[in-house]
């Protein structure tokens, strides 16, 4: 099935963010369309992660406006964004290390589970049925990511590459409509990268999930993304289709280190 890139669902307008006196993002605008794969690239310290943090409400920008599915906001709220179907992975894996893979994924579905703690305590009727129904869903994600053999393993004991995959699994378990991936392939070898690319493309293809990702591997970015935005020193210096960006002189300057 060919993907149909849809309307703009997320529009960031003139976002500025600073910590104390340090400016992390300056007057950045870009948009994300439904079902597309949107990459954010840029040298280290360019503000890429901060950008994702603004999108799902971990950071609150001082200036600018965010339009998400037609709703105008000054900043985002983590809980509301999770409820609106935005899921996320982190640059330095942020799994729940003391819990098993299964529990991590089940935790990813917490917003869809409605029973109260009293029902949980009794483990009876609705609570039990709910737990089983969600277990079924989580097993689908486990199948999809091919991690059946480690489902009961505590996450802390897994190797790095698998942890990254489990983290993707936790995000997918929430059945998100938009997925933010912060360097999903950092530190992986070629095979692991290929696997991860396949998973990202499959997610995008099968579920129509909109994907915003940060990645340093230019080959991967140019291959899989529909549009690319380039940041440098907290400013936007390029935006467009991979080929356009590749030929943008300012982008080349930023990457090859010509003087600013």
């Amino acid at each position: 099935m060919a993907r149909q890139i849809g309307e703009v669902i997320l529009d960031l307008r003139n976002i500025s963010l600073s910590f104390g006196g340090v400016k992390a993002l300056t007057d950045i605008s870009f948009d994300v369309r439904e079902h597309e794969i949107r990459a954010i690239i840029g040298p280290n310290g360019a503000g890429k992660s901060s950008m994702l943090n603004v999108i799902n409400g971990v950071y609150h920008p001082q200036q600018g406006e965010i339009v998400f599915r037609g709703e105008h906001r000054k900043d985002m709220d983590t809980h509301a964004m999770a409820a609106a179907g935005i899921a996320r992975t982190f640059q330095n894996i942020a799994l729940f290390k003391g819990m098993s893979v299964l529990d991590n994924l089940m935790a990813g579905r917490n917003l869809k589970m409605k029973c109260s703690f009293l029902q949980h305590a009794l483990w009876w009727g609705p609570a039990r049925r709910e737990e089983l129904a969600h277990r079924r869903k989580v097993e689908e994600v486990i199948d999809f990511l091919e991690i059946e053999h480690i489902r009961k393993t505590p996450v802390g004991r897994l190797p790095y590459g698998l942890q990254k995959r489990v983290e993707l699994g936790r995000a997918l378990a929430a059945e998100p409509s938009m997925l933010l991936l912060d360097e999903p392939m950092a530190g992986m070898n070629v095979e692991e990268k290929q696997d991860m690319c396949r998973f990202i493309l499959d997610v995008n293809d099968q579920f129509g999930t909109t994907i915003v990702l940060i990645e340093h591997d230019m080959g991967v970015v140019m291959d899989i993304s529909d549009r690319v935005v380039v940041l440098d020193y907290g400013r936007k210096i390029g935006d467009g289709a991979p080929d356009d960006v590749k030929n943008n002189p300012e982008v080349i300057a930023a990457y090859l280190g010509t003087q600013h």
Partner: protein
Amino acid sequence: MQFFLEVLIGGLLSGVMYSLVALGFVLIFKASGVFNFAQGAMVFFAALSLVGFMEKGAPLWLAFVLAFVVMTLFGIATEKFVLRKMVNQPPIALFMATIGLAFFVEGLAPLLWGNAVRPLDIGLVDEPIPWILDNWNMVISSFDLAAAGIAFALVAVLALFFQYTRVGRALRAVADDHQAALSIGIPLQHIWALVWAVAGFVALVAGMLWGSRNGVQFALTFTALKALPVLILGGFTSVPGAIVGGLIIGASEKLAEIYIPPVMAGWFGGNFGGIEGWFPYVLALLFLLVRPEGLFGEKHIDRV
């Protein structure tokens, strides 16, 4: 008004003593990230050692030196047998380990030196200063004033030590980033042992002053409980914070003890003394709700 001032000054002076204990916490926390709950037990241990050596016939200065040696050995042993083995554990586990350490020391110290309450005479008398009594009609203890003076001198010496010596610079480097300090060749474990020795020295001075005032006894371990709200108020990493926090806690606690119970008795009837035990904590807690990082602490930004 005069009475108010008298209470206020008395409170500030005892606050300096709190600062002194809090300083021991701050030193260790800054250098190793360990929140050392055993600081109070160390005060007790140091004071007992001091008295113990004096009972064996040593003059004050010699006993002081010997007690310092004991505290240094204790610091080295702690580093070697406890902290070094817990390098990769979360800070909260280290904190719990120091609670264990506190229990250990609270048993060890009296086992070595006996557990009777003993007086300690360091040549300071706890009497009102006549000159102030005559001129302003206020009771200000000469002991409190001298103790505050000693505490301030100690703080000044430590500040200079940190700022201007090579070891001090190494200490600050370690405090900033363990890994980085290690990679430029600073011997991390020596520095930790050293900082425990310095904290032992601070505990010794605190133990000597508190002990000579109230007698050397188990209650000295409670000085830690006095210092904790000071730390919350001042921030765990700030030397000035420990000092200002101590002054605020000391003054407000004494004022509260004088002025609040009568008001409460007016409302509910009965006796409401002894609020010193919790008032500093509640004060610190309310303060935290406004400024979670403490007076001088650094604001922490979560990076994800």
